[in-house]
């Protein structure tokens, strides 16, 4: 998902405190920043919320790529609003992570030097306008699948951030579907572009949910702590079941020969993505990994004088005020 392969940290805490903590979670209570929590819970959450925040921020890049080239002024305004929302999502989540004792600069630097990851999906390029439609439809669609259950996560600030985010996501998915529908219903050439976007983005979207459950060894503890609410395969299946009819409505073909409705299971059977590609992208070898990190680093470095200047100005102003009083 936006947070993939988060390894639960081992916990070496007083068993009595641990049991009381688990009982609070089992009872559906929210854990707040000042409450006692196991070190492993705190560390795992910093990693998970941080990766989620980084994904929101880096996720602006593939879409920002098309703001100046949107086909109409209206589409441009919509895309701008959507990308601005993603910046907001990043900020809500960074603040949630900071309540766990990591500073904004620390967590930013961990992204910039590669110690922390962001979702694999944003290492794929957006080659043309059809991709922007497909990203809203599929990528935000997949994100929603994961974020909706996370509204019930045990950590209060994370849950509240998710509630805000979910309120805004439906606009994202709908504007994407609307944009790709325009193309699917357009000229044969436009329809071809829409199909091509689906072909390229289908499997990377399935990868967003993380490795298959049988290879996903770190889930159990996170699920017990209610910081992971569903298994990867559960959510992936849900996404496939929801998306296939949407593609059919557009007259587009999901690029999977084995895709078919399984009456018995009440779900679509589908082909898993190529996991070796997924691990390769996570390792830094996707088509855009280098560009994305370079862009984030450049933005951080180029913005340094603004951050420093505004802070210096604020300090000076405060000192002057102090002197006048």
């Amino acid at each position, binding site marked *: 998902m936006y947070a993939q392969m988060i390894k639960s940290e081992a916990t070496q805490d007083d068993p009595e405190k641990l049991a009381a903590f688990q009982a609070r979670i089992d009872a559906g209570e929210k854990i*707040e920043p*000042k409450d006692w929590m196991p070190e492993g819970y705190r560390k795992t959450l910093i990693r998970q919320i941080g990766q989620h925040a980084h994904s929101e921020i880096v996720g602006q890049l593939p879409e920002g790529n098309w703001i100046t080239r949107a086909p109409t002024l209206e589409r441009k305004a919509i895309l701008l609003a959507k990308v601005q929302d993603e910046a907001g999502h990043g900020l809500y989540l960074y603040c949630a992570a900071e309540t766990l004792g990591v500073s904004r600069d620390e967590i930013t630097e961990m992204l910039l030097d590669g110690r922390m990851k962001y979702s694999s999906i944003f290492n794929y390029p957006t080659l043309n306008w059809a991709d922007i439609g497909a990203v809203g439809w599929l990528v935000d669609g997949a994100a929603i699948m994961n974020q909706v259950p996370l509204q019930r996560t045990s950590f209060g600030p994370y849950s509240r951030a998710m509630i805000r985010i979910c309120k805004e996501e439906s606009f994202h998915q709908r504007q994407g579907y609307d944009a790709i529908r325009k193309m699917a219903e357009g000229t044969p050439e436009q329809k071809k572009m829409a199909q091509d976007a689906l072909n390229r983005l289908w499997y990377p979207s399935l990868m967003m949910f993380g490795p298959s459950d049988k290879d996903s060894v770190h889930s159990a503890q996170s699920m017990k702590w209610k910081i992971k609410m569903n298994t990867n395969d559960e959510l992936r299946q849900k996404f496939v079941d929801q998306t296939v009819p949407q593609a059919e409505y557009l007259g587009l073909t999901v690029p999977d020969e084995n895709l078919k409705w399984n009456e018995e299971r009440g779900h679509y059977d589908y082909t898993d993505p190529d996991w070796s590609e997924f691990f390769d992208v996570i390792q830094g070898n996707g088509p855009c990994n280098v560009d994305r990190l370079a862009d984030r680093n450049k933005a951080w470095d180029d913005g340094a004088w603004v951050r420093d200047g505004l802070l210096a100005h*604020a300090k000076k102003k405060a000192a002057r005020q102090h002197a006048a009083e």
Partner: protein
Amino acid sequence: MKNEWPLWEIFIRGQHGMSHRHVGSLHAPDAEMAIKNARDVYTRRNEGVSIWVVEANHISASSPSDKGPLYEPSESKVYRHPTFFDIPEEVGAM
């Protein structure tokens, strides 16, 4: 940490007549910028008619471990609730 902008807690009055409510936090160099940023981060969809910002380190909070001593005394004073008293039906609404 060296040169980080301070953290501000953001409170928004959603509608006229309502109290300001805590909605989240953000970093800003000063109060003026905090209000501007809060406008962009927390009121993109008409969520507010007024914004308060407070620097986070100026907020004092009760400690979670004081929960018992702080709130227990009110639990035993059931007579503070109107439902504690039976009023005869004949008396009418009260």
